[in-house]
């Protein structure tokens, strides 16, 4: 299996689901995929190509929320990042935690920090935020407002 054959297989297999294919460098590929096909694509990359799942990273962009799922295939020194763009009004994408165990905690973290829902997640509890943190307030959203009236935001000098 070479890099080119792997990428060609991916493109052929998910040709209608891939929205954008960005071949950034010999080591790095970004694939934007429809949210409905995410689980199938991630399962294919993880199980059939034998990739390692590193981490997922979420961001609140100006027009949408997006998650990047980073996979690497070490034998060919290749990093594949699957990108899903989600609607801001109802951000939701199927959970990978049933396929990839390592995705469990990062999905919990993205859920509490960015407010993205993961249907099918086995245990979507709060992971990092404090107990007194109110429900429905997501600190990494662009429209986050300070809710704690006792917070002191100057240095006192």
């Amino acid at each position, binding site marked *: 299996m070479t890099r080119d054959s792997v990428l060609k297989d991916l493109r052929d297999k998910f040709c209608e689901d891939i929205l954008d294919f960005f071949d950034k460098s010999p080591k790095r590929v970004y694939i934007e995929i429809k949210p409905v096909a995410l689980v199938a694509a991630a399962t294919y990359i993880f199980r059939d190509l034998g990739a390692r799942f590193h981490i997922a990273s979420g961001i609140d962009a100006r027009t949408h929320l997006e998650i990047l799922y980073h996979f690497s295939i070490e034998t060919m020194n290749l990093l594949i990042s699957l990108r899903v763009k989600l609607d801001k009004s109802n951000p939701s994408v199927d959970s990978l935690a049933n396929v990839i165990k390592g995705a469990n905690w990062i999905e919990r973290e993205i859920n509490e920090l960015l407010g993205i829902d993961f249907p099918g997640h086995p245990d979507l509890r709060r992971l990092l*935020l404090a107990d007194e943190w109110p429900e429905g307030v997501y*600190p990494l959203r662009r429209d986050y407002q300070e809710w704690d009236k*006792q*917070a002191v935001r100057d*240095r006192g000098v």
Partner: protein
Amino acid sequence: MSVTLKALLKSPWVFHLATGSCNNCDIEILDCLTPRFDIERFGMKLAGSIRHADVLLVTGSCNRKSMVRVKNIYEEQVPKPCVVVAVGECSMSRGMFVHSYNCPRPLDKYIPVDVYIPGCPPKPEAIIAGVVKLIGKLKGTL
């Protein structure tokens, strides 16, 4: 000077508590203990448990989760009298985390602080100077 204060100053045992710091202050504190600076000259030792300690030394940016533990330690576990030393910029004003959603208040809004040692991280000399001032203040000579 009371007997307890005299006993405390003879050899203050220090409990080092990191509340989410980047570990730079912790490394400098470790430097103070090693032979080059050797803070044991003043009788200071790191204690393994807060229940053995006279000084509570706090580093780090005081986040929501760790401050619950710090309050618990200070109010319920420390043998009194106890002095609190804040080391580093984070525990004083939260440094670069001042606008962070997770660091709402500085340390001295939670528990009373006796000595502030600023710096990011403070040099071992600064930590020793702060400690010497603390001992002087408690003895009433400063």
